[in-house]
């Protein structure tokens, strides 16, 4: 089973130009708002016509602009879950799920609807109207409706974004359950980094209509191929960098030499580290310079219920005024318990930028 996609479509802001192949593993499509994610799904579903391209699903041609083939949406057997679910408001849950099953005899249709309701934990709600359902139930009803056509591929457009935060983790778990049972190409569009990581096995990072990265999610997060992908996957700390020798890099903006785990070439342009990978260590005192350990001062901080983000200045205290004073070199994220332990320590603190956590980015 494979979905092969190659589409190009000129949009007002940029040109969507994407090609990839999705197998049975769920593929997360990550990108900022307006990167062309939804448009890509719409092209695959047959709701938009690309300028050029070819889409095949298990060898079945859905689109081939060169041969003037454009299979209409109704014949594609591609299930789509819309962002706000688009449940038909004048039909009950059962009528929504059974919409695509009108050709079946009544008994078999009812049987199928009941099975789909059970599978999506909607049993007992079949006679309700969409407006009488919670957000999570609406999402599951839309999913059941899409599964009714026994789709050869499943497209989910921001399936969790319309839900309240407290509902998300539960709904996400159920989505994951459906996902793992569905061993066919499944594409999930999201702008939420963690959602993409949890639900997708492979990842496609989209930026202004282009594929910025495509591959196994662990690999993309550990070794982002570019500065752009590092940013899009949530990395906050970057410095311009220069290769020195072997696996030593000079971080120009951070004013220090750092050892990295990879052998670097002259082409290194940036070095980066994720905010939660920054480690605070006890200093052995001035003079005893340790590898990858840098003194730092606190500029400001910002709290969430369980974590704290520390904005740090390297090498010298935040003196001066205005913009100069606000300048931040690194931002670190730590659990509050840990923060409680070292907040009373006198400044400067010392951060360790572990070679395993640092990644080098080519130009």
């Amino acid at each position: 089973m494979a979905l092969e996609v190659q589409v190009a479509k000129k949009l007002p802001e940029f040109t969507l130009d994407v090609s990839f192949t999705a197998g049975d593993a769920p593929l997360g499509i990550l990108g900022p708002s307006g990167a062309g994610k939804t448009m890509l799904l719409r092209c695959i579903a047959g709701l938009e016509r690309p300028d050029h391209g070819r889409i095949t699903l298990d060898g079945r041609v859905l689109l081939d602009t060169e041969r003037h083939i454009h299979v209409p949406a109704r014949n594609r057997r591609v299930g789509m879950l819309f962002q706000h679910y688009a449940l038909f408001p004048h039909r009950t849950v059962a009528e929504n799920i059974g919409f695509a099953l009108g050709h079946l005899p009544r008994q078999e249709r009812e049987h199928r609807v009941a099975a789909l309701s059970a599978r999506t934990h909607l049993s007992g709600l079949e006679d309700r109207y969409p407006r009488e359902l919670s957000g999570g139930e609406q999402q599951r009803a839309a999913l059941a409706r899409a599964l009714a056509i026994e789709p050869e591929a499943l497209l989910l457009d921001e399936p969790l974004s319309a839900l309240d935060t407290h509902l998300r983790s539960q709904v996400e778990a159920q989505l994951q359950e459906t996902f793992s049972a569905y061993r066919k190409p499944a594409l999930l569009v999201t702008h939420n980094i963690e959602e993409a990581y949890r639900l997708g096995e492979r990842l496609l990072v989209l930026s202004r209509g282009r594929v910025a990265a495509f591959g196994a999610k662990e690999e993309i997060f550990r070794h982002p191929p570019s500065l752009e992908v590092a940013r899009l996957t949530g990395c906050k700390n970057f410095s311009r960098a220069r290769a020195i020798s072997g696996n030593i890099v000079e971080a120009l903006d951070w004013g220090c030499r750092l050892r990295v785990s990879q052998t670097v070439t002259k082409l290194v342009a940036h070095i980066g580290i994720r905010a939660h990978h920054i480690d605070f260590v006890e200093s052995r005192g001035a003079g005893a310079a340790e590898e990858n350990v840098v003194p730092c001062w606190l500029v400001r901080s910002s709290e969430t219920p369980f974590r704290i983000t520390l904005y740090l200045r390297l090498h010298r205290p935040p003196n001066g005024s205005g913009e100069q004073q606000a300048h931040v070199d690194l931002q670190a994220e730590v659990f509050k318990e840990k923060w409680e332990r070292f907040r009373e320590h006198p400044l400067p603190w010392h951060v360790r930028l572990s070679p395993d956590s640092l990644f080098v980015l080519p130009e």
Partner: protein
Amino acid sequence: MAPIDWSPLWISLETSVTATLVTLVAGLAAAAWRERRTGAAMALVDGIFLLPLVLPPTVVGFLLLLLFGRHGPLGKVLLRLGATVVFSWPATVIAAAVVSFPLMYLTARAALEQVDSRFFEAARTLGASEWRVFSAIALPLAWPGVLAGTILSFARALGEFGATLMLAGNIPGKTATIPIAIYFAVEADDVQRAVAWCLIDVVISLALLAGLYYWTRARWVRR
């Protein structure tokens, strides 16, 4: 006093009901056809569809007379088939339908445009044909608006005078509708008869408008 001839009431009702049915189908078809099209040419199409609303009914009636007359393009064809439209009951229906068409078209289009197009797209990904998208999704969701358009069209058809007189004339018991009966009653100085028909017309129209108000208030909440 001579017994009242009730025929204008029945002619008016039969004409309006038939004309409204024609308008409902034609207006819906035109609105659905137009909704999925864009372009400069569509402005002209809209103009043509709305013309009967802005032209004086006598002009509409005269144009229809030219079209359906013995020497008109449609009249000639019908004559060959052995049918004459002018000064017959079908003429009252044609006049009323043409004049009420723009109201149906406008309301139906507005109602269809209000339906979120994602419902149509969802239906398409679920394998629905365009006819099913229209009949199972678009029409039920646009129904309150379509119903309002139907009632407006019926009211307009009931009140039609100018075009009817031009195309169908005043043949008592055949083409004389209520408005035409009133006009000729006044002309014949039969004030009592004119007042009676006026009252009947007011009652019917008022009932329709009250019904329209009730229905549009009672429409279901969307989504």
